[in-house]
């Protein structure tokens, strides 16, 4: 039962990634794409991490994986800002 739940979580995470990629291709401008992509992808990674943590009950691995996720959450926020700034600077030139 836990295995099934873990699998479904991972699968929905993967679908999030697909949605993010399609958004990257289909959304009209760079700010929309930034807005959509950073959120959707981090949600997808979170779901995948949740699934993996459920599947492997080793607490050390679980902590490591959650740490990676938190790190990416923080860094992607900063990176999104940097990319938006770069795009703005390009536009104002």
């Amino acid at each position: 039962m836990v295995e099934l739940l873990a699998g479904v979580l991972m699968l929905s995470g993967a679908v999030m990634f697909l949605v993010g990629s399609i958004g990257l291709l289909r959304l009209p401008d760079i700010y929309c794409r930034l807005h959509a992509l950073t959120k959707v992808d981090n949600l997808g990674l979170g779901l995948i991490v949740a699934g993996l943590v459920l599947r492997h009950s080793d607490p050390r691995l679980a902590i490591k994986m959650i740490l990676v996720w938190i790190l990416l959450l923080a860094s992607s926020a900063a990176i999104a800002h940097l990319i938006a700034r770069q795009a703005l600077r390009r536009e104002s030139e």
Partner: protein
Amino acid sequence: MMDSWLFDVVDALLALTAVVLAAMSVLGSDQKRSIVLFIAFGLLLSLIWARLQAPDLALAEAAIGAGLTGALLLSALPYSTAEKGACRQQRAWADIAFNRALRGLAATLIAGVAIAMIWALDDGRLQSVPFTVSEQVFGHLPHSGVGNPVTAVLLNFRAYDTLLELAVLLCVALGILALGQPSVPVVAPGPVLVLLVGILVPLLVLMAGYLLWVGAHAPGGAFQGGAVLAAAGVLLLLSGHRDAWLPGPRLLAAALGAGLFLFIGAGAAMTLSGAVFLEYPEGWAGAIILLIEAMALLSIAVTLVLAYLGGPPAPSPSPPARHTDVEGH
């Protein structure tokens, strides 16, 4: 589970995307685009190493191929944009025709080589390589002082290779110090980049130490740790610390030579005590290897930061980062 056809789909996707990225990167004419695609190619290659059960290489590629080489090429971009237009302009028609013929010939030759290689692959040689060396490595692993076979090969069984590689790195560092000038100052960074650097640099340093320590029994080691530490230096340079926290000339020279000279010193000590050069005494191998690796990590990191810097570090009393920091708060 391991034989599922889905793995074939995964492999095909990864391999095909790697080839497409490489082709777009190499054959395009926009240099900046080529570099971005090359960075993406490095990230993808790191996934391929992971898929081929080479986590040691995946670690190194993630640090070197994706991070450092990309940053290195980007830092060289301002010096290389001028050269292309200049040499394209004045050229006679015959020259162009000859050039085209030469290029056609080169392409044909390369296609021939590629076909020959594919034929060699198809001949089943991939499956029939004898693996006696591998058996020897795993047979002697308990006596090597470390549990990670790749570290054992690098620092014990084939220590000469690594010794000479450190010599190569030292030569590169000396070449850069001899030829380079202090680099151009960068634009002052924004507050978010300063914040990001403040979080990432300690994490990268921690990660480098962790990789050094874990390299004894799991994937990791001096090369991966050194590359990650160098990434911390590159990040400092990007945020306006023009010295990248590198020490003054004397300490810098010491850090550059540390790996090689400790390696040679350890080997000489073993020779003097009656053993063969670089034949570690039983029981001490693990400790000696860790010490050599620590120094090698330092040398590798400093060399790579110098490579990105493109010359000796500029002694800057007030890095631009401090200014924005003061303004920001």
